[in-house]
């Protein structure tokens, strides 16, 4: 039975409290009720509750405010928001602030029992797996993906389509186009959304580290392995594993990955116990995998194994119409974080943003806005606040005659010079990782 699970129902309507009280008691849960936020807080003081079902609209302190108060003292309780159709927006807000999910009144009985069952399962998993805690906040997923352009609308359509299936997805696009956000959006709209989405950046780790990162290791498996550790495959069990930069993994790891994907089982490094996992795989790459297969650097069998469904993210310069929207989003974001009274950007500065080439894509744009927000003064951002206004080569003017590679090369050199060839700093400004930057320096034969 569900004896271990306790549920607190908070709603100002008596009939709702009674209904839910009876319904959950029949299902074997331990149930308490509260008619307002004040009573709810008392109940939470007095006893431990696993799950709280919370009406968003209540006289006095409303559900959202109560959620905030509860979250301050209790990070563990699973909060499910009850809402009417009219206030779904508020419910989405509640997700961002850490509620687990929401239901729209009246509920379909099947949905409700599934939701609670999932929440209960989630609870027992959560105790075992801290990873999950971080992921609740990602449940909302989509709102960070911004764009009105036809290209982005098409991408979102694909996300919705593929989310409901369990097939492997490859997300392709340049650095900084937001491949991880897309992976999270797919996960959040899939039946696996109550389980974790676990990202791994395969490009950032050396082979041996990646192996233990993915498969975990037993105590003493290698020098420094002081305790047993679960790998990302295990953490993603029943959820989604997101392998970023899949095109960068070594031949040996490619073979290992293929083996795990085919058998759905593996052993920890230095262990011999077989571990079974049920995961959905999403990969991302900015490499041309077909070319890599042709050249023999990427296994053909692995390529076919993962390349079931492809989503291609357009670079920012191919969807410039989204730049104003994105810029405004980042302005709002950093105004809030930095507590600054900057709400807008001047037309001249916006013009610069729109004409810029953005080799680092959305991430570069975000970094540019963040930096501008640091140096800028209220009430709005000006051209001189932007990191590239000093460029002696106005980017777009010559662009018509130059190839993209030429522009990229020039921009990277420019950023490198400005940062005094500090690779980490330049990579951050460009919105790409250091490995990618090194590769580009090599490619364009840039020198100090």
């Amino acid at each position, binding site marked *: *039975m569900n004896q271990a699970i306790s549920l607190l129902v908070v709603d100002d*309507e008596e009939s709702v409290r009674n*209904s839910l009280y*009876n*319904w959950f008691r029949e299902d*074997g849960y331990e149930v308490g009720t509260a008619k307002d936020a004040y009573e709810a807080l008392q109940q939470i003081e007095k006893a431990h509750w696993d799950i709280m079902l919370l009406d968003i609209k209540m006289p006095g302190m409303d559900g959202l405010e109560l959620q905030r108060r509860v979250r301050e003292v209790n990070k563990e309780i699973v909060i499910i928001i009850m809402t009417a159709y009219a206030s779904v927006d508020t419910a989405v807000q509640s997700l961002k602030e850490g509620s687990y999910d929401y239901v729209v009144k009246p*509920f379909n*009985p099947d949905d*409700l029992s599934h939701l609670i069952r999932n929440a209960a399962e989630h609870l027992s998993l959560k105790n075992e797996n801290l990873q999950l805690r971080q992921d609740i906040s990602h449940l909302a997923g989509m709102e960070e993906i911004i764009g009105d352009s036809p290209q982005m609308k098409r991408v979102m359509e694909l996300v919705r389509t593929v989310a409901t299936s369990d097939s492997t997805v490859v997300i392709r696009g340049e650095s900084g186009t937001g491949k991880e956000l897309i992976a999270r959006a797919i996960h959040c709209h899939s039946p696996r959304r109550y389980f974790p989405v676990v990202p791994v950046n395969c490009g950032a780790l050396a082979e041996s580290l990646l192996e233990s990162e993915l498969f975990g290791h037993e105590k003493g498996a290698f020098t420094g392995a002081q305790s047993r550790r679960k790998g990302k495959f295990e953490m993603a069990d029943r959820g989604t594993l997101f392998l970023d930069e899949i095109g960068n993994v070594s031949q040996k790891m490619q073979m290992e990955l293929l083996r795990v994907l085919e058998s759905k089982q593996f052993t920890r490094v230095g262990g011999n116990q077989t571990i079974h996992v049920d995961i959905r795989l999403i990969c991302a790459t900015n490499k041309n995998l077909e070319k890599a297969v042709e050249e023999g650097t990427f296994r053909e069998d692995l390529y076919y194994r993962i390349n079931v469904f492809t989503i291609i993210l357009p670079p920012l310069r191919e969807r410039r119409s989204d730049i104003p929207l994105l810029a405004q989003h980042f302005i709002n974001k950093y105004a809030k974080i930095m507590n600054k009274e900057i709400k807008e950007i001047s037309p001249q500065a916006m013009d610069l943003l729109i004409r810029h080439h953005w080799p680092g894509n959305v991430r570069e744009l975000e970094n540019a806005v963040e930096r501008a927000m640091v140096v800028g003064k209220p009430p709005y951002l000006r051209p001189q606040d932007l990191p590239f206004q000093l460029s002696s080569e106005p980017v777009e003017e010559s662009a018509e005659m130059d190839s993209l590679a030429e522009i990229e090369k020039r921009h990277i050199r420019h950023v490198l010079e400005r940062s005094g060839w500090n690779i980490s700093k330049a990579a951050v400004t460009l919105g790409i990782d250091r490995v990618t930057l090194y590769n580009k320096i090599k490619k364009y034969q840039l020198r100090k």
Partner: protein
Amino acid sequence: MPRVQVVPLLELKTETRDRLFTAIEQQTTWPAELMLLPFDPQYAYDVAREQYHSSQLLLGLKNKSDLNDDKILAIVPFDLFIPILTFVFGEAHLNGPCAIVSIYRLRPEFYGLPPAPGLVVERLVKECIHELGHTFGLRHCKNMGCVLNASTYVEEIDLKTHEFCEDCRGALLQTGSSLIQ
């Protein structure tokens, strides 16, 4: 000796009634008896939802009838709801006297399927025993075949039997005897 009073607000065919009463007697060990109650459910009708509020009907039934230690089981032709849910197949007072079951969503016609009278009788019997189980203080049971397995869609009703599993039967005997004491 306490009984289960069965109050149909629709016409029950003799075969249906016999099938139901036998099942009740076998499963609860209490005799079942037909009770024709003058009961107008109109007060529980919700115009906006075009459904009947099942909790209000349960209260009404409780006030209307002469119970002593009896259980009362109403069977209705119309769709039932509780405020928080879009519908319910039935409702019962946990460890209380009253239960109600609707036949409305048990009919295949509701789902656009051809009529299947035999199937509807089986579903009705299962839902009646299920709700009665709650009146004896039993909660939902995880055993797949058990009549107290929770059903939130109609195909789930078809998956279970009309009988209590061993665990539930054991629990029922305990509460049943404590009630009689």
